[in-house]
């Protein structure tokens, strides 16, 4: 009885895997909902981080004034123990969520990326550590926006 059920389960899971395989090739773990969010609150909610706690252990290195909004360098270091992921959001961009990085064993919770900014805005970082979400912000003033053009 149990053996039969186990085999059925096994067959079902193999079938599910086979079905998933071709989809996997064309993306994706890409979080369509979070990246498609048009407001900060929505994006944070889609990340499961609706109300992250402020933290001084997240260090954001970004220019105070960016002359060119098409490429603003943003460097993030998390000093929170067991940081699992780092997400970068630009509060005032049309789609606030820019990037999310998951760190596995062997990777330091650090990333540097160039982003486009439509206008002066807070750059927000949300880090997940020990099952909780933490955040830090830094304001970047943009002289020439880099989203349309």
């Amino acid at each position: 009885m149990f053996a039969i059920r186990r085999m059925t389960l096994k067959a079902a899971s193999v079938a599910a895997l086979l079905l998933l395989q071709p989809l996997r090739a064309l993306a994706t773990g890409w979080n369509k909902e979070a990246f498609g969010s048009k407001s900060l609150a929505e994006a944070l909610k889609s990340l499961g981080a609706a109300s992250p706690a402020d933290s001084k252990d997240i260090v954001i290195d970004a220019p105070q004034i960016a002359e060119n909004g098409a490429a603003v360098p943003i460097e993030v270091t998390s000093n929170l123990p067991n940081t699992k992921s780092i997400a970068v959001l630009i509060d005032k961009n049309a789609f606030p969520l820019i990037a999310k990085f998951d760190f596995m064993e062997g990777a330091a919770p650090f990333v540097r990326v160039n982003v486009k900014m439509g206008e002066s805005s807070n750059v927000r970082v949300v880090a997940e550590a020990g099952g909780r979400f933490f955040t830090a912000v830094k304001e970047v003033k943009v002289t020439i926006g880099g989203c349309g053009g």
Partner: protein
Amino acid sequence: MAEPMKIRATLKGDTADVRVLMGHPMETGQRKDSAGKIVPTHFIQEVTVKLNGKTVIEGQISQAVSRNPVFSFRLKGAKGGDKIEISWLDNKGETNKTETAVA
């Protein structure tokens, strides 16, 4: 077709500093071409970093990452000669990868 990628990994103490450049237009879907038509979105969505064949960083990015994206990552406990592979996948299903050894 996908433009070339550039990668460099240098050892600092026990941490490998990895820098990668991906040739990609990263179209936002907001830009218009010379004829005034909107250029459709075309951007990298997923970035994977592997150290000696094991995935260590998985990134998801949006169209708001700058054109020809440059990333820096840090890998702890890496040694000289370790193999680092970085690949990407965009919203059209195009993909590219490159690898290097830690120097």
